[in-house]
């Protein structure tokens, strides 16, 4: 089943219209057999949401030469889990390719990668103050 929906009557907090539109035709349907496909797409959307959330921060940095601390904090929180999943995905592929004698090395590398991802996220959390200070647009000065 496929129906169109105007932005006016879209349910609150549904997925962004641009992302939904493309997938609607494939996913919309009231057949029980479609449930896993529709639900699987929803999870993929949610896990990818961190990437979408990063866009306003990048735009603000480019257009206004400043970083909104709260905005970035939200991105970091969402991106952290996605980064760990990305590392896990790479890990899965590596395990497919490698023989057993290098498994322990691979495991160590993956653990290090997760630690590095955490460190990166923590550093990002401190970034707004440094960037805004460097750009002379520290939010405190304007208050």
């Amino acid at each position, binding site marked *: 089943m496929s*129906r169109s929906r105007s932005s006016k009557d879209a349910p609150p907090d549904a997925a962004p219209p641009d992302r939904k539109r493309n997938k609607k035709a494939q996913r919309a349907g*009231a057949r029980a057999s*479609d449930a896993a496909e529709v*639900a*699987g797409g929803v*999870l993929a959307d949610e896990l990818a949401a961190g990437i979408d959330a990063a866009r306003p921060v990048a735009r603000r940095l480019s257009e206004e030469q400043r970083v909104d601390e709260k905005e970035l904090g939200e991105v970091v929180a969402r991106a952290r*889990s996605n980064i760990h999943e990305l590392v896990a995905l790479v890990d899965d592929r590596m395990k497919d390719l490698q023989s057993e004698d290098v498994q322990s090395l691979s495991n160590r590398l993956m653990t290090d990668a997760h630690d590095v991802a955490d460190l990166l996220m923590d550093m990002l959390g401190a970034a707004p103050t440094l960037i805004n200070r460097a750009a002379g647009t520290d939010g405190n000065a304007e208050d």
Partner: protein
Amino acid sequence: MTLDEARRTEVDAGDLVEATLSRYRTLALERMLETVPADGPRYLYDVVRDYLQRPAKGMRPALCLAACGAWGGDVGAAVGTATAVELLHNAFLVFDDVQDESELRRGSPSLQSEYGVGVALNVGNALYVLAFELLRANRSVLGPTLTERIIRETLQMMRHTLEGQAIEIGWIRDNASNLDAEDYYRMCLKKTSWYSCIYPLRIGSLIATRGVEPSPALYRFGWYLGAAFQIRDDVLNLIGETELYGKERGGDLWEGKRTLMLIHQLQRRPTPARLDRYLRQTRAERSVADVRWLHSRMESMGSIEYAGGCAGTLADAALAEAPAAFASATDNDDLRFLLAMPEYVIQRQR
């Protein structure tokens, strides 16, 4: 364990699930009761203690502890975390009942029905505090890095839950009628599945492996399992025995909840004027006759059957993810319990 092997063990799976739930529920309950202060105001802690002892399945701590055991971890080291999961679940239930004005919970009056909204809110907040005290106490057992990681996972889970709850309430408030299955699944992922399945499975695995990121397939296993669980819960709300189900039968209809069954109805055009009028009313304005009419319509038009079919499809999808999700796990009773859960959640009566 392969998928075929998992299916061959289905005969004993029901007993294994019940036994595992019972064993882990006991562990979590004991720790919960130890956590409640013995010498605080009785107006708060007596109610907390009574509420925690109401009959419950204990699915969430069981998923956490079984995941830890399946990955070869020390289950004892995960009890504090699993207990925090159950405390948070209880807090969510208290707030959910206030928001939905539900009358029954676990076979007894909901907290706000029995003591009033003020007491219910205090109990819900106390449960949050007790849960985070347990998570913070993990430092001595799990170390600072893993403790911090679990707290981050917890905050992420709570955010999803809060967002899902907001979506559901917003739909009722705005009388959203142009919804489809995808909208329902998004709400369900956030409101139920993340905290009920994805989160306990992930943190159980993280504790066992000392922080190794689980396979992405575990997200999908948990998501499909949680969705099947929630849909079955919605179906039981219509067809379940109140004594077993423990909640107000038909409560979702009274509340106008956007379940898969109601969305199935709303997708049948044109929407009958009676349904349109019903959904525009508040809970207090709705009549027994209208609730019975909607229930009957859902039965006769196959909405309940459709939802049951979706739950079955999702349970199958969870099982299909199991080989990848648990590829690095150990073949033991904890793993067999986890593999039996998809079938259990769609067959359960309570």
